């Protein structure tokens, strides 16, 4: 057991921590931008509107993130049309493929959270909005969204944690995230236990920071 190698190679881990953080943060943000309209439209009764969204959510929630990443990173390269277009500039980058896969994945899960929260909106509050003459758009903007997004927060904090942990597969497509850093260190020193334990601790730090922030927020929102 020799933990001095971790201390010697701490820069690798810091770099990995940074990569994991921005990759996860960016996919969560972009995913949320997809998820809110997708979740709203998913509650629509028209199949032309909710059908495509249902299919998107069904695919990304139904298959492993790793398979989705491979489809984008390896699979897309098979199509000459893309290889010859400007898109290839992005798709040849591992970070772009990981970001895209993570965004679409978390977008689908978060859309489901949004949909559930909207479905569980207390009927009486909607009725009150109606009775006071609000239009459907006003009801959505002023009552349904702020109310249900707040209620969705505990479920969303879980999604963030899943995303942090799920992002460990970015290392498979050459990205040096936390897991990637551990792999490099292990390859250099052949000290798998020390290398991956350090990675595990870093993930724990990230996870508990998120949990802590949500706890703080929930304390402020104890009334809901």
């Amino acid at each position, binding site marked *: 057991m020799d933990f001095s190698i971790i201390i010697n190679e701490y820069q690798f881990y810091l770099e990995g921590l940074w990569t994991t953080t921005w990759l996860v943060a960016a996919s969560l943000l972009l995913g949320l931008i997809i998820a809110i309209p997708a979740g709203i439209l998913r509650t629509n009764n028209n199949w032309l509107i909710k059908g495509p969204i249902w299919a998107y959510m069904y695919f990304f929630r139904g298959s492993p993130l790793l398979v989705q990443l491979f489809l984008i990173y390896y699979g897309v390269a098979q199509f000459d049309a893309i290889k010859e277009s400007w898109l290839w500039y992005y798709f040849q980058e591992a970070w772009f493929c990981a970001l895209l896969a993570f965004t679409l994945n978390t977008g689908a899960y978060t859309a489901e959270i949004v949909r559930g929260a909207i479905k569980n909106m207390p009927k009486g*509050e909607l009725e009150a909005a109606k009775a006071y003459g609000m239009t459907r758009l006003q009801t959505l903007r002023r009552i349904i969204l702020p109310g249900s997004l707040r209620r969705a927060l505990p479920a969303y904090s879980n999604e963030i944690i899943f995303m942090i942990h799920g992002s460990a597969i970015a290392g498979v497509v050459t990205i040096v995230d936390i897991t990637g850093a551990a792999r490099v260190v292990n390859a250099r020193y052949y000290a798998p236990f020390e290398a991956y334990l350090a990675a595990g601790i870093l993930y724990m730090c990230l996870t508990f920071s998120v949990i802590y922030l949500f706890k703080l927020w929930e304390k402020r929102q104890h009334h809901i």
Partner: protein
Amino acid sequence: MTIPTISIRNLHKSFADNEVLKGIDLEAHQGDVISILGASGSGKSTLLRCVNLLETPTSGHILINGELIKMKDDKKHGPMPVSIKQVERIRSRLAMVFQGFNLWSHLSVIENVIEAPIHVLGVPRKEAIVKAEALLERVGLFNRKDYYPGQLSGGQKQRVAIARALAVEPEVMLFDEPTSALDPELVGDVLSVMRDLAEEGRTMLVVTHEMAFARDVSSKVIFLHEGLVEEEGKPELIFENPTSERFKKFISTVY
């Protein structure tokens, strides 16, 4: 003859095969306080909810201040209003107080009260706040204005709901069993606020089980039975000399 504030003519409402209202006529003039009584299932809540079109009548006419709510018979959806804009505009002049309070739980007490004035009626925010504070003072909850509904008791919630209703300066206030979900010791506070409102000449339609309120406060009582008006009149008359056997039985069992 003044134009009635609310005029309901031959109102029918069915849910699938179940006809809940079988032809109701009702007129409310400015300042009337009409209590609507009846056993559960008699259609009294449905009647009230038809006035602001929370329920769509199957047939009949509703006029608010002489303005007919235009209805059409849609092939696919059945009877429905011609113009949702008209319905929204009329709703914004009525105000409803619900049995289950139905406050918006993500908004604080004062935000609940200013929501409709600002966003539906277009009242400037500052003005709406000043008025909301006065209304909360009036229902005895000014010191709770920054609380959230989840932090209040049922009676407090219902008084906030009444302040929310008053904030839109409604032409008619619709009360749908406002005290039925309350613990007995909290009923009094809500009823005394409603009593005040009646005394200052508000037009109110009240679905209730509170016989004392119906008898002492309202200017007219309507007793529904199986979707029809079984008995109606001034409370002092019909409570003393009910013509309907059913109403006689109803008041003897309930109070």
